[in-house]
């Protein structure tokens, strides 16, 4: 089938496409990234691909999509062997991919993004005609997305839907979704996957979803294939497998770090962080965040739930000194706190922001240097250092790298060369070493695999049990339920709900997150 994406065919006239890989093997030099992997994804099914980071999931889909050329093995599309030499060939066969990061152009509107991706864009675009055609196409879609607004103004969930719509608009009927929910809230994720699932059930689409979230796999997928270190370690219908089975296939016999037993918060625990009546403008300058009262006491974790874009980021920025508050007061241990370096040091405040590579590291400086950001300017006696203690920095870096299992080619590599999980570990190593009295954390486990997640949570719990006050902002409700002592919900810049985590009801929290309060 040659589908030149000339005239966009009416959506329902094109059936779903099924694929099968047979003995797919990919070697990079001496390293075998993919070893004889055979999976079958029949048309109109929802197939999940599970595996830890580095298990070969991306390699497999890149072979399918024509980014890599497999060393051995073959790809069949609709039971016919095909040669896919480039992503263009894959597109012609109706295979499409939705990436983890968005590939939409932020300043273009949804409609412009859709039209410009076609291969036959006319030299002058007749927008009246295109809008009409797009409206007719969107009628056949289960998603509703505003197409007239620049993509940068859309919520993460809407962008993800638009990515999928784009693939369908271009005539793709087999979609690889690469961790499609990693930037979505639970409600957004459920809605999006539910709609996609509906399309597969109607035979309009075939989906291969890369994921490491078991609840998504069990709830939405028909079948699952599990990769570990490049090999297929298991495959089967989701209905026949338990979460424990899948986890065992995925991580083998590796032991996950366990959380320390939660020590009770004593009634007399002193307040370490208190925020009162803080108002600050958000990124657009149009809305305000308004924190009436927030107290975090020693030895407790206060979790802040909320859909992204409701002011959590701004709150974190105010606490980190990156954003000036217009009014109100932030105190740490009873004294006014302006997040200056001396104040931070005197109060042992540590900060793990989201996207740590961008927000807590100097990407092109070495791992050693990045690990020394808290300490490089202090000499032995506690005075300000004039000369850097190069040897001391190196020694400290290698001990932290060992302790926190940071995988890096060398302590002298730029930190940007590390994988996301390892950057996160390195930042944790820096922030959690030494005395910690207040720890402010944002989405610490975003996009990390199992063992990294388990370990990072264990470290945070350990800091809590050692007496640190922890403010944990997360978009992952499961994480908040597992880690927090108290949970607060942030919505439209305000803290609208508070509950002890023991008595927390997810549906009540969800309703407050969605603005029903």
């Amino acid at each position, binding site marked *: 089938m040659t589908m030149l994406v000339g005239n966009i065919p009416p959506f329902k006239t094109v059936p779903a496409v099924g694929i099968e890989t047979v003995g797919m093997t990919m070697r990079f030099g001496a390293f075998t990234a993919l070893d004889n992997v055979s999976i079958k994804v029949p048309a109109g099914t929802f197939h999940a691909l599970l595996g830890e980071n580095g298990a070969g999931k991306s390699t497999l889909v890149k072979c399918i999509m024509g980014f890599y050329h497999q060393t051995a093995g073959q790809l069949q599309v609709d039971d016919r062997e095909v040669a896919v030499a480039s992503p263009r060939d894959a597109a012609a066969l109706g295979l499409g991919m939705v990436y983890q990061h968005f590939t939409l*152009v*932020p300043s273009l509107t949804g409609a412009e993004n859709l039209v*410009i991706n076609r291969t036959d864009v006319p030299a002058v675009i007749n927008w009246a005609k295109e809008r009409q055609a797009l409206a007719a196409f969107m009628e056949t879609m289960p998603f509703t997305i505003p197409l007239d607004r620049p993509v940068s103004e859309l919520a993460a969930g809407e962008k993800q839907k638009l990515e999928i719509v784009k693939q369908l608009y271009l005539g793709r009927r087999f979609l690889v979704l690469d961790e499609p929910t990693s930037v979505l809230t639970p409600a957004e994720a459920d809605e999006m996957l539910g709609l996609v699932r509906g399309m597969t059930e109607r035979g309009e689409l075939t989906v291969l979803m890369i994921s490491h979230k078991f609840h998504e796999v069990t709830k939405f997928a028909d079948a699952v294939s599990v990769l570990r270190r490049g090999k297929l370690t298991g495959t089967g219908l989701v209905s026949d497998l338990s979460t424990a089975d899948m986890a065992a296939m995925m991580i083998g016999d590796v032991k996950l770090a366990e959380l320390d037993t939660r020590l009770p918060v004593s009634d007399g625990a002193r307040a370490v962080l208190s925020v009162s009546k803080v108002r600050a403008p958000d990124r657009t300058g149009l809305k305000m965040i308004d924190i009436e009262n927030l107290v975090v006491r020693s030895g407790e974790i206060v979790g802040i739930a909320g859909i992204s874009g409701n002011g959590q980021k701004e709150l974190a920025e105010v606490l980190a000194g990156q954003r000036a508050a217009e009014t109100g007061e932030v105190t740490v241990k009873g004294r006014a706190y302006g997040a200056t370096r001396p104040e931070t040091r005197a109060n042992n405040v540590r900060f793990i922001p989201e996207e740590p590579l961008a927000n807590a590291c100097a990407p092109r400086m070495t791992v050693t240097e990045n690990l020394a950001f808290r300490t490089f300017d202090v000499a032995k006696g506690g005075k300000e250092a004039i000369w850097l203690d190069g040897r001391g920095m190196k020694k400290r870096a290698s001990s932290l790298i060992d302790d926190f299992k940071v995988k890096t080619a060398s302590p002298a590599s730029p930190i940007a060369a590390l994988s996301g999980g390892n950057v996160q570990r390195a930042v944790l190593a820096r922030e959690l070493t030494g005395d910690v009295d207040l720890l402010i954390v944002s989405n610490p486990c975003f996009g990390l695999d199992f063992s990294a997640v388990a370990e990072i949570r264990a470290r945070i719990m350990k800091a809590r049990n050692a007496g640190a006050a922890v403010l944990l902002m997360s978009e992952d409700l499961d994480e908040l339920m597992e880690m927090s002592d108290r949970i607060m919900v942030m919505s439209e810049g305000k803290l609208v709900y508070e509950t002890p985590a023991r008595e927390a009801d997810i549906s009540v929290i969800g309703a407050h997150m969605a603005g029903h309060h």
Partner: protein
Amino acid sequence: MEDIGLWGVPLAILAGAIRVSTPFIFVSLGEAITERSGRINLGLEGTLVFGAMTAYGVAVMTLSPWLGVLAAMAAGAVFGLVHGWICKFPKVNDIAIGIAMMQFGLGLAFFLGKPFIQPSAPKLPSIPFGGWSDVPQVQAALNINVLFLIGAALAVFLWWAFRNTRIGLILRVVGDSSDAARAMGLNPDTVRLLATAVGGALAAIGGAYLSLFYPGSWNEGISSGQGLMAVALVIFARWNPIGCFLAAMLFGGAGALGPALQSVGVTQGYYLFYAAPYVLTLAILIATSSPTRSLAGAPGALSITK
């Protein structure tokens, strides 16, 4: 000459806006195209001066000002191509290359332009729109050069084209996200190479205007930094072609304030008013900036916004 008193000031500002703004219009439109593709070409000052020299030289030799303009465009495109070609190599900084290209363009223009300082070239034609008035100042002010009209039309056309043509959308895609561009099979380097070439060609038209109309001669002091200011105007105009046109008019008008005041007899401090365009630009940039918001409309792949 009839005395029209203080009315001379707004009239002079209008006339100045039209006369002085043309080089700004072309350079800033060219730079807007280049920057919309995600690259900054700071070398347009050099391109402008080289364009002025080329246009003048070719006009002297062929006696056709329009051939001069075409030759300038070709020369400007070559400068753009060189800039774009060097910038496609990894780890090359477009701003540094731009500054180098600026110096190169100036030096080469002065070197090759020596023989053309003496001879006089035919001027570009202008259209007298002021025939309805008896006042010579009004007639002079409304004697509008064809290039100004072309520049105004070009601004509107580009504004339309950025939204409604394939090339316009491709340019915006490449400028906003190199990754997205690659994902749709576009080569960002090629698009930027061409965008820089077009930008260079337009900037050279600005130069041709300088040497072939106003002031209308070729010498080493022909440009007073128009090529550099126009780059700032693009940011000031938020990468919008119509904004570029208006900003260039505003800048030209403010530039005419000093001479206008001088002509109505203000004898003290008029030199201060020569600084008006720069003060105005600073004031507007400060007034429209914000420490908490990022620049709206800035192409995402630009090296200053990355």
